[in-house]
């Protein structure tokens, strides 16, 4: 089951990753900008079971680690997205207040992005990744979270539809 879902979703992950690296990264947006790929990975996770979310989080984290602009060691984003995706799927599963409600999903994803970035800073500090001054880190984290809050409602219907078509899970939001 997981193998089948993974084989279907991996090309989609690579496609969105390409969009992030080729298109979104061309814009130097204020306050850190946003990551379409991160939002996509978390939307995919919230629509999946915790097991599938963990595997998709692992794959998406690995892709983020392979980005030439990633500052940490390979495996850091893998570990973080694995944890974030599993957590978002675990807490979201069975909670229709979150899963069935686009506003709930948007806030849930923005909150997860916020904690994901904090986790990156903490693990980065442990692994020797320099992230800048405290004020700058705080500004970037809040900036990315706010951007996610704005971008997620726009992308959510598309990502949800992609998940529905690819895996035929009827979990469209």
């Amino acid at each position, binding site marked *: 089951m*997981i193998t089948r879902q993974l084989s279907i979703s991996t090309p989609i992950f690579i496609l969105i990753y*390409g969009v*992030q*690296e*080729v*298109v979104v*990264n*061309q*814009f*130097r*947006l*204020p306050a*850190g*900008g946003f*990551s379409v790929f*991160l939002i996509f990975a978390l939307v995919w996770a919230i629509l999946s079971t*915790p*097991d599938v979310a*963990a*595997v998709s989080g*692992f794959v998406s*984290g*690995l892709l*983020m*680690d*392979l*980005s*030439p*602009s*990633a*500052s*940490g*060691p*390979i*495996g*850091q*984003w*893998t*570990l973080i997205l*694995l944890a974030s995706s*599993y957590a978002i799927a675990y807490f979201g599963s069975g909670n229709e207040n979150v899963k069935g409600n686009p506003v709930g999903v948007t806030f849930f994803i923005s909150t997860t992005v916020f904690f994901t*970035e904090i986790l*990156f*800073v903490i693990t*980065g500090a442990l*692994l020797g*990744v*320099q*992230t*800048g*001054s405290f004020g*700058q*880190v705080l500004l*970037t984290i809040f900036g*990315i979270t706010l951007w996610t809050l704005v971008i997620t409602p726009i992308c959510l219907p598309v990502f949800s539809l992609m998940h529905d078509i690819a895996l035929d899970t009827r979990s469209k939001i």
Partner: protein
Amino acid sequence: MRYGGEGRSRLLLIVLIVSALFLITLDLRGVGVLEGARQGTQTILSPFQRGGSVVITPFKNFFSDVTHLGRTRNQIEKLRSDNAKLRAALLNRKNADAQLLKLKSILDLAGTAGYKILNARVISQGSSQSFSQTITIDLGTNAGIKKNMTVLAETGIAGVVKEVYSHTALIMLATDPAFRVGVRIAGSQQIGILSGRGSRSGRLQLLDNQTTVKVGDVLLSRGSVANRPFVPGVPVGYVTAVDNSAGAIAQSATVHLYTNFATLGVVAVVVGAPTVNPGDALVPQKPQPTPLPTVTIYVTPSPSPTK
């Protein structure tokens, strides 16, 4: 059955976590395969990034204009006022000559240091999700770019070549928190280390506790052994605030970097350093106040009309 399913789920999670930790360990130990994977990704992405850059540039400029609407308006006002000044100056031959000399000296500045450079176009900005500040340029090993070469912008230092691929190179910008450059203060020759802080302002840490720094001091790169990663004499920025906190071992200061990193479109990679240290030759000239002309009018009273 349910218990077995939970056990399998836990096992899967443990396997994935261990795999991630294994990857981190391998990367931190410098295993070449993983570094090759990142290089491979860049090699695959670079043609798409190049194409994307061409297609997206008009949109990027539009967004940049929208983002900097207030600043653009100010710039337009400034340019208008400059234009008026230039028109007035053209009327005066002496002023025009002075302007010509100034322009000539600016053009000569590039050649003063004797850097051998390669111009490159910025094809991608690095993602800020990892708190790093990078750009990708359209030149790589095929053009003679090597790791740890100095990268210049129009007004000063832009960064350093962090990674090189066959047709592209990744540049760590001077604003990156991991960026460090040895600098000296123009004139006094005091040395220190400037570090990036994620924005256009950097942090200067002087190395000698006997030396002092003051607002307005210009910083130039000190140069490295064999001129890599930094060639000497490149303008870096100027001091905007000095931290005089008691108990500090050496003075530190906040530095405004000359380069505007938000508008980087073309950069130059220094591929050949000068044989002679340019010293303070590239220190940007401070704007000279325009002298106000004084007009003296002599009035001779006309004889009073006689009736």
